[in-house]
């Protein structure tokens, strides 16, 4: 079964949306960097829809992503920026999926294949519009046996 079609297992600690005075912090965790990044994408979709768990939405199609970046921080920003772009230009909302990382540390390549919904505010809800992805306080590091990524998004 392709990564896009596996039903995601429920993990309440997978991702969260945290307080920050005027904006929003996304945090995602995973046993691998790839899992943390995939869940970070889902967290972004939770913000824009206002939904508790976007993985419950019915998928309309698959979404494939391929991006490159010169370091891990830039990769995180580029990944979420790409998802934001796909939402705003094609109305495609990332629900869940798999991420693969390759390449040396100064030329990282991310490919992803996931389930996506055709975003409809009436069906999926209107959360908060995301203006951009920031580098502010961005971290992507190991914490215990999990990889953790924190990103502040401008809303």
């Amino acid at each position, binding site marked *: 079964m392709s990564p896009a079609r596996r039903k995601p297992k429920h993990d309440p600690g997978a991702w969260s*949306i*945290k*307080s*920050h*005075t*005027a*904006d*929003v*912090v996304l945090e995602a965790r995973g046993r691998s960097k790839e899992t943390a990044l995939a869940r970070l994408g889902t967290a972004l979709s939770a913000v*824009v*829809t*206002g939904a508790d768990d976007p993985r419950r939405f019915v998928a309309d199609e698959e979404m494939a992503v391929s991006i490159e970046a010169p370091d891990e*921080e*830039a990769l995180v*920003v*580029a990944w979420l*920026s790409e998802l934001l*772009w796909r939402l*705003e*230009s094609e*109305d495609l909302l990332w629900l869940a999926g798999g991420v693969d990382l390759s390449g040396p540390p100064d030329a990282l390549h991310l490919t992803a294949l996931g389930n996506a919904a055709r*975003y*409809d*505010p009436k069906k999926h*809800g*209107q*959360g*908060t*519009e995301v*203006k*951009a*992805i*920031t*580098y*502010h*306080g*961005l*971290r992507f590091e190991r914490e215990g046996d999990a990889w953790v990524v*924190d990103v*502040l998004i*401008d*809303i």
Partner: protein
Amino acid sequence: MTPSRLRRPVSWDGPLTRVADGIHEIPKDYRGQNGDLTMNVPGRIIADDHLLPHIADDKAPEQVANVASLPGIVGHSLAMPDIHWGYGFPIGGVAAFDPDPEEGPTGVVSPGGVGFDINCGVRLLRTDLHVDDVRPKLRTTIDVLFDAVPAGMGSKGRTGIGDRDLVDLMHDGAKWAEQQGILTRDDRLHLEEEGRIEGADPSQVSERAMTRGRRTLGSLGSGNHFAEVQYVDSTWDEAACKAYGVRDGQVVVMIHSGSRGLGHQVCQDFLQSMQSSSKKYDIPLVDRQLACAPLDSPEAGSYLGAMAAACNFAFVNRSVLAASVRDALQRVHGAQVETVYDVCHNIAKWEEHTIPGDGPGAGSTKRLCVHRKGATRAYGPGHPGVPGDYRDVGQPVIVPGDMGRMSYLLAGDAGAMETSFGSSCHGAGRRMSRTAAKKQWQGRTLVDELAGQGIVVRATSDQVAAEEAPLAYKDVAQVVDSVELAGLAHKVARLRPLGVVKG
């Protein structure tokens, strides 16, 4: 560089000395929280004694100090009284850079010093209606406005626009909008810079930014953007009121919006490329979000060209929104609607200023690149940049508060040119996170509460309304008091909310 952690900032305990009424200085020899900062100019925070403790609460002063470390900064690294923690630059930050200093490195331009929402700003419209005309039909008025103004996540503009038009409007801003009949010549002459920033270069705007812009032109956005019907409940400066055409009981409309997806993408694009520029020109950064390029570099030229294009897009966006408001009020009330003024909050502009302080270039009058991020231009009486019919009284400064209490219309004072590169505050600033606000006002609680006060709120969701609860914001009256104390601007009118549309 070790990234700072995303925990709630603890109180700032750095040095802060009162140098004048409502003005406090971070000395140039402050070495930063890590002991390795080199400031090129002192920092100055505009705030009275009520606000100062709150400002120190979120460590935003540290960002004021960080900005002071950038090359070619002159005068002071400034913060307005509505300052709070931002990305690199604080929100409420003002900083001016010299492109041609007599000594030291060339000044820089930084996308982080403008913000993601390029030319986010406010337009104030006046009507010929009295509050007693509108109250009986208030619900209908706000409902019609809600239908007329696309707002919220996923909202798209209703203005179909092709590539040629998009390029033209990025180049010509409100001038293009006037040619399309979206606003009148009189409206346009009462916008900051007459609604057009010179030097726009649409070729520097990426295809992604253009696609995002095409889909969102004429929409309000989300978060703290709004279209609010208000009435004048107090006035102070009779001459300014007469010049601006405002009077007690008059109904006005305030629109807060920016450059939508186009501007957001321009900033995102250039933040990436400026990371490389900073390395190329050997500019050490204490914060990655301060990425910048020397003003005489091709990279700076590209950013300034794209930024100006995004600014012009925002002027047109607010013009389309204003046209929608005008149509709605004409339909419900047969109202006449005119523009009082339009101000930019997030921008970098070439302006002529006399450099204050005793640092590099002090006392000389020069063309500087002034960054305002969450700050408003506030030119005083006599300045040639103020529209002719306002010149005797100074430039209008529009300061939104919150949807439960009040907003203000101020007039710029000559003191702003001496103290803050002709700048003032832009709003109230948040005091509570969105998550906390949603917890406190669940479901329709907030909308019902405000309805009980006679204020009609139409929001795309209860969640959006709760996030923008009045008490989630600081008291704008205190912010405005601080601005008056420091001599930057003074009160002309207080505006109370009647109803609001939120995305």
